[in-house]
Structures are given as structure tokens and as C-alpha cells.
């Protein structure tokens, strides 16, 4: 019997698992995917928004503002990169400028730092801003992260401190077992086993309504209709087209189509926002991609579309109520929904965890703090070290001098570390998420065979057993020349 079972190892589930791992309680995390942070966490704009945008009085507003303030310290403690890149929200006409007035008012109410700039002052700072921009609000506390790296680091630290993690297991049923109300517990059945827990935290992303229905034995009282967002990724450049996040003014469908720098000087263009019923349909469409292309041109000029290296699509878990649903079920005591975590879910995630543990479940989760808490050892990224430190690493382990991914300059040492760490990579995508080979302009064309080879060696498997991501995502089908058929 676990104290708490968390369903979903995305950014919210990982934050909650991490924060609970500091307390004296037993926690199991279950995810249907092959890796931590593989759903909405993997495919979004990767921005820690400042928090001026959500409607007053919503959980989104409260938790986004708080989350934005929590991130820099948390990332430093975890040893993952947080880049405080700042942002512009830009207006191109007087109507849009009125929206900026509203945002400025909300920012002032929430004590969020901002600057009001006219078009030319904004263009002095971001020369590729469209000539049509007449005014911009700058929000200097806006940050960018690699969301999956934060989720993996959180889960890694949780696992080091005793959390159990089961990947590739899909929850198939949940029963509330209550001999008497006071010692009720839940039996969570998965494709691989059955687990019991006194509390369940449902952080199942786009499937949170389905998971809640399993326990409720009837239709969930919230419904999640995913919103699909599609993106382009531009190649890393010495001088990316923008250095701040560029937002248009927000509209009824959310924050609009953005131009977003990434930590490694790539640029994301997107997303559109299309409600779809199919919770699996994270595919790209030519319609949405052309929409994104035309929409970004309204705020930013000189976008080098010949530097596109990838397109992707993500599904945001949008609820029907318009706000996050974070509460203990009225009907099932001890069952906590952390659902409908669409934008600004990433920015709010640390505050969501804090809210769940310290407010929603304050009494139930009043476990004592552990006397000893072990911090993770951050991944050493060679690109971030000075020359002497690099050579010191290579002296200790020559694999750090063997470059595998030449686009992103990732060494074999870093890849072996990614595989052998707690919550280590078991797949090509897992390696890519942790240390980056294949994220660059060749998209794995040169390095994938080498990464497969390293995975096979480190995991003691045949190369044909190595997967891209899920157990069904076969890479190599058959070895040649092995004798009669």
C-alpha cells in the first residue's frame, strides 16, 4: 500500500512527486509513456509566462504569478537551465493597444514588473519586430526552459529519494475500496499490474477526465477537449531572429502565435489552437502550418523559413470550465484531480504542486519532512563548461572528448551519463531529451545510428531491441545475412 499514487509523469505529476519526496510518505508514479514528460510537457511553447494574462480571480492567474517567481530558484537547485529572456506583447493598432492597457493594469495589480514601449523603442531592442508594431509591453520576468528537462530532473530527484516510477504502464481501471470511510483506499489497475494507494493524484493530462471517470464509474464532471498547437523549429543561429518571446495581443483562443527563442538559440514559431476530440491526434497539418507561417509574420519580420529543421504538434489539455481543475473529488475522498492544465500550466506547475500539497490536501498530506534529502547530481553539459573544465572532464573520462552529435556537439560521455543516471534514458528519444543529440539540423541523420549503438551497449541489448520511444516504435527490423530464412 502506497500513501499516494500519482497518475501521470508530466510536468505537474513530476513536481508533485518531487515535492512529496521531501516528506515521509510512500509515492508511486505511473505513466503510460516510455519516459517522463512525454505528453503535453514535450510539445508546448516552453515558456514560463510572467502571469499578467489570465483572468483575474482564476487559479490560472494565482498559480502562474506564483510559479513564475518559483522557477529560477527551483531550476538552480535542480541544476537545469532557466533563461530569463524577457518578452514583448505587441500591438499593431489602437484596438490592440487597448488590450495592452488591460494587461498593464493586470500586471500592476499582480505586482508583475513591466515596461511600456512605443513601436520604435521596441524595435531598437528587437530589430526584427514588424514595422507595423506601434506599442509593446515588456515583461522582463518571462523565462524559457526545456520543460522535459525540468520534469526529468524533478523525477530523478524524487526517485533518488524513494519515489517509485513505473513507465510504459497505462491505467486501465481504478476502484475505490472502502471497508469503512475512514480507511478507504484505491486500487489502480494498469496494463502491467495492480497497485493500492490511500490517495490518488490524477495528473493524467489530456486523459485526466477519462481517468477520473474510471474511479467515478460514471462520466467525469469536467471534460477535456485537447487543443492542438503546431510549431516550426528554426535551426540554431549565432543571432536568432528574436532574443525575447514575442506575443501578439491575446485573443479568445489564447495567447496567439508566438515567436520564441530557446535556450540553445533555436526559435519556435507557433502555436495555432484547434480543438479536437481525438486525444491522440498530435499530427501536423499543412493548413495549420501555413496559418502559423502567416500569423508570425504579423509581429516579426525576416524570419528565415529556410532554416526550418522540424515541425511538431502538441495537445494541450483544455477543460470546459476555462480554468485549471485542482481539487479533491466531492464524491471520492482522497482522489485529487489536477486536471485541465493547459497554458499557463507549465509556468504554474511548481505553484500547482505547492497548492495541492499545502492547501488542497493540507491535512491529509501533513507528513513530516525527511531528515535527509539527497539532491541530484546535475548532468554535465560540455558546451556549458569553460576550456579547462572541459579538458578536466576528458582527462577523467575520455568519452567526453568523443563527439557523437556534431550539430549540437554532444559527446559519448554525456550520452552514457544520460542512460546510466537514475530515471535514465532507455530510448533514442529519451537520450535526445536529456542531452540533445538529434535536436539539431541533421535531426539525427548522422547520430541516430551511433546513439542506437551506445544504448545497446549500455543497456546490454541487441541493437534491434532499441526503440525510438514507445515499445512499439521499432527502429531496426531485421539483421541481415544471419543465415537461412
Amino acid at each position: 500500500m502506497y500513501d499516494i499514487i500519482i497518475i501521470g509523469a508530466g510536468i505537474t505529476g513530476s513536481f508533485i512527486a518531487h515535492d512529496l519526496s521531501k516528506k515521509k510518505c510512500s509515492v508511486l508514479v505511473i505513466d503510460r509513456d516510455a519516459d517522463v514528460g512525454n505528453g503535453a510537457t514535450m510539445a508546448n511553447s516552453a515558456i514560463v509566462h510572467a502571469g499578467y494574462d489570465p483572468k483575474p480571480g482564476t487559479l490560472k492567474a494565482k498559480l502562474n504569478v506564483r510559479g513564475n517567481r518559483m522557477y529560477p530558484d527551483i531550476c538552480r537547485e535542480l541544476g537545469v537551465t532557466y533563461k530569463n529572456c524577457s518578452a514583448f506583447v505587441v500591438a499593431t493598432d489602437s484596438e490592440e493597444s487597448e488590450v495592452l492597457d488591460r494587461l498593464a493594469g493586470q500586471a500592476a495589480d499582480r505586482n508583475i514588473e513591466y515596461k511600456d514601449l512605443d513601436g520604435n523603442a521596441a524595435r531598437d531592442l528587437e530589430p526584427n519586430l514588424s514595422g507595423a508594431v506601434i506599442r509593446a509591453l515588456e515583461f522582463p520576468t518571462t523565462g524559457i526552459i526545456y520543460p522535459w528537462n525540468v520534469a526529468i530532473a524533478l523525477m530523478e530527484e524524487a526517485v533518488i529519494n524513494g519515489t517509485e516510477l513505473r513507465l510504459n504502464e497505462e491505467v486501465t481501471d481504478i476502484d475505490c475500496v472502502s471497508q469503512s470511510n475512514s480507511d478507504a483506499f484505491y486500487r489502480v489497475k494498469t496494463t502491467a499490474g495492480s497497485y493500492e494507494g490511500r490517495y490518488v493524484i490524477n495528473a493524467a493530462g489530456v486523459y485526466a477526465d477519462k481517468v477520473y471517470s474510471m474511479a467515478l464509474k460514471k462520466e467525469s464532471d469536467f471534460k477535456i477537449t485537447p487543443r492542438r498547437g503546431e510549431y516550426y523549429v528554426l535551426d540554431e543561429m549565432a543571432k536568432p531572429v528574436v532574443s525575447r518571446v514575442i506575443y501578439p495581443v491575446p485573443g479568445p483562443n489564447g495567447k496567439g502565435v508566438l515567436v520564441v527563442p530557446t535556450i540553445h538559440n533555436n526559435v519556435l514559431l507557433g502555436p495555432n489552437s484547434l480543438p479536437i476530440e481525438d486525444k491522440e491526434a498530435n499530427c501536423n497539418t499543412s493548413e495549420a502550418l501555413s496559418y502559423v507561417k502567416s500569423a508570425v509574420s504579423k509581429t516579426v519580420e525576416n524570419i528565415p523559413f529556410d532554416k526550418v529543421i522540424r515541425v511538431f504538434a502538441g495537445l494541450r489539455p483544455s477543460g470546459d470550465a476555462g480554468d485549471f481543475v485542482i481539487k479533491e473529488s466531492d464524491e471520492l475522498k482522497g482522489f485529487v484531480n489536477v486536471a485541465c492544465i493547459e497554458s499557463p500550466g507549465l509556468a504554474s506547475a511548481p505553484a500547482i504542486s505547492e497548492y495541492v500539497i499545502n492547501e488542497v490536501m493540507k491535512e491529509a498530506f501533513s507528513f513530516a519532512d525527511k531528515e535527509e534529502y539527497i539532491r541530484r547530481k546535475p548532468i554535465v553539459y560540455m558546451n556549458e563548461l569553460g576550456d579547462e573544465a572541459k579538458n578536466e572532464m576528458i582527462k577523467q573520462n575520455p568519452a567526453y572528448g568523443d563527439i557523437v552529435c556534431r550539430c549540437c556537439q554532444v559527446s559519448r560521455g554525456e550520452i552514457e551519463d544520460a542512460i546510466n543516471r537514475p530515471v535514465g534514458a532507455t530510448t533514442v528519444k529519451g537520450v535526445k531529451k536529456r542531452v540533445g543529440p538529434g535536436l539539431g539540423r541533421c535531426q539525427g541523420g548522422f547520430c541516430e545510428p551511433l546513439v542506437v549503438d551506445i544504448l545497446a551497449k549500455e543497456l546490454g541489448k541487441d541493437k534491434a531491441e532499441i526503440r525510438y520511444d514507445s515499445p512499439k516504435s521499432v527502429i531496426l527490423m531485421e539483421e541481415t545475412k544471419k543465415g537461412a530464412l
Partner: protein
Amino acid sequence: MNSRKIVIIGGGSAGIAAAIAAYNNGCDDILLLEKDAELGGILLQCIHNGFGLHRFGEELAGPAYAEKWKDMLKDLPVEVKTDTTVIHLDSDRNVTYVNPAEGYVTVKAGAVIMALGCRERSRGAIATPGYRPSGVWTAGTAQKYLNMQGYLVGKRVFILGSGDIGLIMARRMVLEGAKVLGVAEIMPYSNGLPRNMKQCLDDFDIPLYLSHTVTDIRGKDRLNGITISRVDESLNPIKGTEIDFDVDTLLLSVGLIPDTALLSEAGALLHPKTKGAKVDEHMMTSVPGIFACGNGLHVHDLVDFVSMEGEEAGAAAAKYVKGEFIPKKGYELMPGDGVSYVLPCVVSPDIMEDELEIKLRVKDNRRNVRLVLREGDKTIKEVRKLKTAPSEMEKVVVKKAELAAISGPMTLAVEDMG
């Protein structure tokens, strides 16, 4: 800091030839850097034959061609470092490389020869709609898995793009037991060599869909199907022309792009068409002392020409470090009608060698044409051609004497025979 007279980056066919030529032209201090465990570059996975006809007068398999060059290099006093990746290059020719034995090392080079080869355009670069499952690779990646590691990536295969690597892989996959259901090419003509169309597709009854492209990719985990559609004259898919294929593998042969990350870092000007560096008559880039050649400069059809270009760059770099020519701003050479690009981009007749080989690609398939080099209205040189094709690089050789009177920019055009 270490200093070397010539540092060559890339030990494939261009880099090896450049090293040999640099030595033969009097340079005795050459460092050749190769990222892989042995010299040879991409040829090592090109196990098909057809290499070396121009250079050696015989048809060799890729690895055999590479080995012949390695044998020629073996006894020369050229220092070779394998498993060595170059990380930085600046405009003062400081080259920073890394390998497991030495760590990060910076050397100052008298001249640098860029021979880094090219990479394949990926699915991301062509922004194909659909899902992103395992099962979509560039042809070269599948070739590496098959020919060097001994693994077949799939059993039912479709190929997008009629580039030579795609055609070669179609045959290889069939011979190894896969079924290739077709090849789609977005242009109305094939991009591969005619012999590869014949011996890789026709021989195995593999259909070629011209003016078609892939418009959907299906499968959440592993690819399980694709859709192709006919495209209109502006290359946009036409609704209602979709054809579905149940395949587990999609290979891409949709173009090669010179690897120029280091050149950009050093500040070299790039050519908008070739995506490689702009070079002058000595294969020198806009950064003095940095030379470029091979597929890292512009993509070739035949490795023999890659080697020859490496030799040109090697010889020029050797002369440069000896001070035998002082680079100067020459006259521009531009593509005229019907030509998509021409190299070099700049020519200085007074410092050029006795002969200059101008390389060009035409824009479309034509018959009975002439390639005409002009300065203004004045014709400098004319070469007749029975047929020209975008898939085949053309050359025009001009003599120093023919360019002696040049005083302004030149163009090279394709014209019909009157």
C-alpha cells in the same frame, strides 16, 4: 599556441585529395582532422560501384575508391587525427578540435581547407504533415544501418525524392529482402542519374511517381502508412489525387546541403543557391586563407569530381601559404539565363592558374544548347552540349589568355543552338 601551415577539416574524398595535393605542391606541414574512426567519409557506406571512372579509369565500389586514396596518402608526411571533431573556427584561422586523447586543442593555421561534406535534408526541413513515428529516415541513415551495421530498417518501403542515394537504397533494400512500393518525385523530372533510374528502379519494377509528394504520414509508434498526392505547377498538392500506401518505412532523398556551420562561425559569405561558401578562382572563401571544396562547397554527382576539387583546393592552399599569390578582389562571375549557379563566384584573371574550370548547374532539361561565357555583350567562350540536366553538373574550361582582357563582371548562360 600550436601552429600548422595547413589544417584540413574532413577526411573524406575531398579532404584526402586536398592533403595529397597540398603536399605535392610543396607544403610539408599538414594536419588532417577526421571526426570518424577512419578516413574515407561517406564513401565507406556507399558500397555500390560506379566510383573512379574519371579518376582511375575503372569502376570501383565506394570503399575501394576511398581505400585507393588512403593508400596514396599513407606514405606522405601528413599528420592525420581521427575521432577528432572540429568545434570552432574563427576568421583568424584558429581551429579548435576535440578528441578523447588530447581534449580541446586550438591550432593556428596558415590556411584552412574546409572539406566537411554535406548532410541530407531531413523530414523536418521539408515540413511534411502527419505524425512523427519511427520509420522515417533519410536514405543515407538507412544506408549506414544497412551497409555498416547490417540491419534492415524496414520491410515495406516508400521513397520520397529521386536523388541518387534514394535510388541506390531502393535497390539495396529490395536485394536484402524488402519490398519497395514506389518513389515519388515532386519535380516533373527525375533527379537521379539515368543509369540509376534504369538499374535501381526499372530493373526491379519499382514505379516512379513524378510530380508527386508525400502529404500524410501515419502511425503513432512505427510508421504504418503514407499518402502521396500529385502537385500542381507551383508544387502544391492537388486535392483528390491522393494515393495511400501501407508501408513501414519512408526514406527521404530530398536533397543534400553543404555543412557550413564552421564557415558561418568564421564569417564566410554563403552562396544563396548552393548553400555552401562563395569561392574565388583559387577555391578561397571570402575569409582570406580559408578554402572550401567537395560536397561541403556544393553538392556533386560524382565523387571523382569531389576529389578533383579537393586537389584544386589543396594546391591553392599550398601556394597561398608560400605566398605565391596574393588574393585580390576579382571580377564577379554570375549565373545567366537558364543557369541556377556557377562557381567560382569571383575571378581574378591575373593571379589565376593557366586554366580555370568553371562549374555550373542548369535549371532544366534541354537538348542542343550552348553554354556561353560573356562579359557584357562580348562572348568569351562557348561550349556546345547535346543535352543538359539539373541533375548533372556541367563544366566550362577557360584559359588564362582567354580572360586576359576582362574588365568587368561575367555571366554564364545556357542558350539554344540557333
